[in-house]
């Protein structure tokens, strides 16, 4: 016998007994949860109006709104979240901040110290949402314990909003490296002053943070960042050059076309592509000589982008027709023909 029948039999009996217990527990839990939901709901309904008067009309705070029990805290959290997520009114946000700092602090401090990871995470979400600045020192205390990546990220994000010095310092010195997405999120949400300071520290930042920083400058269409970005197009790392070119294209302002022309002959096709896109931001007359070379590019994306840039410019169609008839380059003729025939529709 590989395993004794008796033992197996006992295992099964024990398992069944455990499962029965767990079922009973679960059913009771479900009932308790439903009851809790009901209480939350009742509290929410009784106080809905009072909250509206306080938050929107700025009336004095009703004593009854101050939570004392778990279901009251949960209910308050739901109401306040709804306001935060659906309104971007400065007064409302200030009132929520004041209320939370005064009356919800203890509740979230307790959750922040909870042994359960999800409780701590939820508490940090709320500290951010409700701007509970008074809990930042408690957050810092958390650093001493062994944090998960998600928790560290939430901490960074709290610092970026409420404690900029710590944020800048951490960003440069920490050994934790986040993903680009996370850096983008941190930098995008942070104040413009932080971004201004970061330009000076750029070379000290982790590489993923550098990439994200350039991207953020691009999609916030930060015109003041142009000189910085233009200086980065000559960076030694190709990825930084490409992203800087892309960001400049997104901002859409070309101060001096001469900065970008060398990229038309780059060995990296992404650089040629970005150069083509930037050429689309200047009048076609100026860009045409270079675009005529790029439409013969060996890379499909570069060729088709060049054709697109020509076609959308003034007299673009005529130029494309000329290329179609006179060019000796098969690629260029093909792409021009295709664009003349089909390119009128969505790209």
């Amino acid at each position: 016998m590989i395993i004794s029948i008796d033992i197996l039999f006992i295992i099964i009996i024990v398992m069944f007994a455990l499962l029965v217990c767990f079922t009973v527990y679960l059913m009771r839990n479900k009932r308790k949860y439903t009851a809790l939901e009901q209480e939350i709901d009742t509290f929410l309904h009784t106080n809905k109006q009072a909250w509206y008067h306080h938050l929107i009309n700025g009336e004095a705070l009703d004593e009854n709104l101050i939570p004392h029990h778990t279901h009251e805290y949960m209910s308050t959290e739901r109401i306040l979240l709804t306001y935060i997520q659906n309104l971007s009114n400065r007064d409302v946000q200030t009132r929520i901040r004041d209320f939370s700092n005064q009356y919800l602090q203890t509740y979230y401090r307790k959750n922040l110290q909870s042994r359960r990871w999800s409780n701590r995470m939820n508490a940090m979400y709320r500290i951010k949402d409700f701007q509970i600045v008074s809990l930042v020192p408690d957050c810092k205390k958390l650093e001493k314990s062994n944090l998960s990546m998600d928790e560290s990220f939430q901490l960074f994000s709290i610092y970026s909003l409420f404690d900029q010095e710590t944020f800048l310092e951490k960003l440069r010195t920490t050994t934790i490296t986040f993903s680009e997405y996370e850096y983008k999120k941190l930098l995008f949400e942070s104040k413009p002053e932080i971004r201004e300071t970061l330009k000076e520290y750029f070379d000290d930042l982790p590489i993923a943070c550098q990439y994200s920083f350039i991207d953020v400058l691009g999609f916030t269409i930060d015109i003041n960042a142009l000189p910085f970005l233009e200086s980065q197009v000559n960076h030694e790392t190709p990825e930084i050059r490409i992203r800087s070119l892309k960001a400049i294209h997104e901002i859409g302002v070309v101060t001096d076309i001469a900065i970008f022309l060398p990229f038309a002959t780059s060995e990296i096709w992404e650089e040629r592509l970005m150069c083509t896109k930037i050429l689309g931001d200047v009048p076609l007359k100026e860009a045409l000589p270079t675009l005529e070379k790029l439409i013969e590019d060996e890379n499909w994306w570069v060729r088709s982008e060049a054709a697109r840039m020509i076609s959308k410019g003034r007299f673009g169609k005529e130029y494309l027709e000329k290329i179609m008839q006179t060019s000796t380059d098969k690629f260029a003729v093909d792409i021009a023909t295709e664009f003349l025939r089909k390119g009128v529709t969505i790209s």
Partner: protein
Amino acid sequence: MSIMDYIMLFFGLFISLYMLIVVLTYSSMLFISFTQLRKVYRLDKSELDEDAIDFVYSKPISIIVPAYNEEAGIVESIHSLLNIRYPQVEYIIVNDGSTDRTQEILIEQFKMKPIEKIIRTEIPSKPVEQIFQSTIHPNLLLAVKENGGKADSLNAGINIAKYPYFCSIDGDSILQENALLRIMKPIITSNEKVIAAGGNIRVANGTDIHLGAVSHTNLSNQPLVIMQVIEYLRAFLMGRIALSKFNLVLIISGAFSVFNKKWVVKAGGYSVDMIGEDMELVVKLHRILKEEKSDNRIEFVSDPVCWTEVPEKFSFLRKQRRRWHQGLLASLWKHKRMTLNPKYGAIGMVSFPFFWIIEALGPIIELGGYLYIILSFLFGNIYYEYAILLTLLFILYGTVLSITSILLEAWAIDTYPKSRDVLRMIYLSITEIFWYKPLTLIWRIEGIIRFIFNRKDWGEMKRVGLAKKEVSR
């Protein structure tokens, strides 16, 4: 003792040992899932949705919906897709030479007009004859092509897709409104190291579907459907979560998954000559990842939910299971060199043996176990010890693990909030070993036989259309 006795004892020992390994494997996977779920228990996940909705962080997706004779449900599924919360999406319906009114219905319903569009053919497919664009939803396209099967339609869709990620969805499935946001999360946060992600599939039969969204989750009344609900839930808890944790996933459901287009093109797209084209693609991706020594991953994500319609009749279920098993074997066989090949790391050393021994050959040994028990009781008492042992192992495997999964799901995820529904599932899982299990074993063995004889006439499932059912209820 005669030779016959030795043979019987040998088989008794062999099957028991096998079942013991199976039970231990699944129990440990269940345990891993438990630890994962306990961590995120009551975590507020809506916070993450708010993040991802910002176009700044998210990656645009092309949603590809292959459709072949789907006139019954297509409009409802497209409406459901249009409801999805995601900043940048385009929808590409690929009409794979339908012989019914699929095309006319779509053109009429979404006021579609023919357009000219430059298509860059990166994966060969049957030619696309015409592309239509909706005048109501400019990001909704319909590609009309010659019939070439689902894989071919997906390949055509990939060529048309303009975004770096694409999502494949069955025409009869309904996505939860936040599903795309959540499935993209591991991709975005991992710096795009995750090149494919599969979502969680739930059974739509029985739920209320209103304007393309699931409004109430009720458990179906049909035992056959409930059994499938339990099966999907088991696959999720005793498989995908644990496998994904160690980058061992070989199957992400074709009904709802997101892929990085660049890698899929590199892998040559979907294989048109294979039955299980979704599994095949994942295996191919793993293969090139390992061959290029890339540390990219393929993940299963448990939050994003896709509701899909499952067969309600034995005959359709039989065809489906036969096809699935045939597809599994075909893929494993095609890439048999990866099995126990250290070059392919954990995929070769763990995933492949797991899928070969437990998933692929399981039905033969398990059905052997059933026969063994019956024979032992017929032939007298010398083998009865093994027979009892086997029966107990079957109970442990079938019933105990199923009930544990049901309860774990009810505790952590709570798809069916009504206690009555949970109890009904428990009750049915007790009966499973008497009817459902043997039936699926036989169907899967049919799949094995068809694989051996290389039969290709895999069955189609009759779609009733989700919305239609709602009306008729």
